[in-house]
């Protein structure tokens, strides 16, 4: 199985915070975006590929099938960052036997059906329940915008 160094929920996927803060603070050389819509959008796929600096490979997968990529044997020195817009993608991965210790929730914006969970984070009841199930399965669910910020455990707020 691949080594997942950072698992992150961010509705902006790859953007300034990811590029400037996360990639520079962790030895990440693979980014996997799991997003059904993006997997079908060739133009946005090309844009994200162009945004990633040299030395980092970007892969994009639909939710169903992403577990196969992450289930492949790990190559020496290979470290993944997995990005998705919602926590249910990560529950899918855990249910498929993919493991990671922490889920960093960095960006979930307001949307119909969502309520403020913590600071700028919003979540629907179903998304809260999903994060709770992840916690019950042993994943620490934390809020952290950028690595210099303190991790805030979301468990008690779910």
């Amino acid at each position, binding site marked *: 199985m691949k080594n997942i160094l950072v698992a992150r929920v961010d*509705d*902006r996927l*790859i*953007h*300034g915070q990811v*590029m400037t803060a996360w990639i520079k603070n962790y030895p990440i050389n693979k980014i996997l975006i799991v997003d059904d819509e993006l997997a079908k*959008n060739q*133009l*946005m796929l090309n*844009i994200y590929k*162009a*945004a990633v600096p040299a030395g980092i490979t970007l892969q994009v997968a639909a939710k169903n099938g992403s577990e196969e990529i992450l289930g492949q044997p790990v190559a020496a020195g290979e470290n993944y960052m997995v990005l998705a817009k919602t926590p249910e993608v990560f529950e899918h991965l855990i249910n498929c036997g993919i493991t990671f210790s922490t889920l960093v929730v960095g*960006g979930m*914006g*307001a*949307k119909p059906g969502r309520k*403020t969970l913590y*600071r*700028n*984070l*919003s979540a629907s009841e179903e998304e809260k329940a999903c994060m709770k199930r992840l916690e019950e399965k042993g994943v620490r669910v934390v809020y952290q915008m950028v690595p210099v910020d303190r991790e805030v455990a979301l468990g008690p707020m779910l």
Partner: protein
Amino acid sequence: MIKIIIFTHGGLSGALKESASMLVGTLDNVECFSVMPGCDLDALSEQVSASISKSQEDGVIVFSDLFFGTPFNILINLSQKHSFPHITGVNLPLLIEAVNYSRQEDAALEYIVKELMEFSKDCIKDAGAFIASL
């Protein structure tokens, strides 16, 4: 009149418009959009899309602040739905230049964009080097 849309991170778009109006007067044809922390990105994308589509006939030029930033990414995604010129890296001199072109009656969009790109190469200066060159 050609519409100018400014789409940035945070309050930059509104502040740019306000600052530009100190120099070139009221800017009725400039519309601003901002990505704010925790905002609804789908709703924001819809608003920008509606604004672009409303001005397709008169013409519209769109500015974003940062190459590969979220406003840029949203606009690239919208370019699959609408056709519009999009320049990223907006600053005050460029905005003022765009406003001046937008006030010309018969300026064609392609021409304005070409002129703005030419202008953009020369609007950031090392003041020290400039003084030394005098």
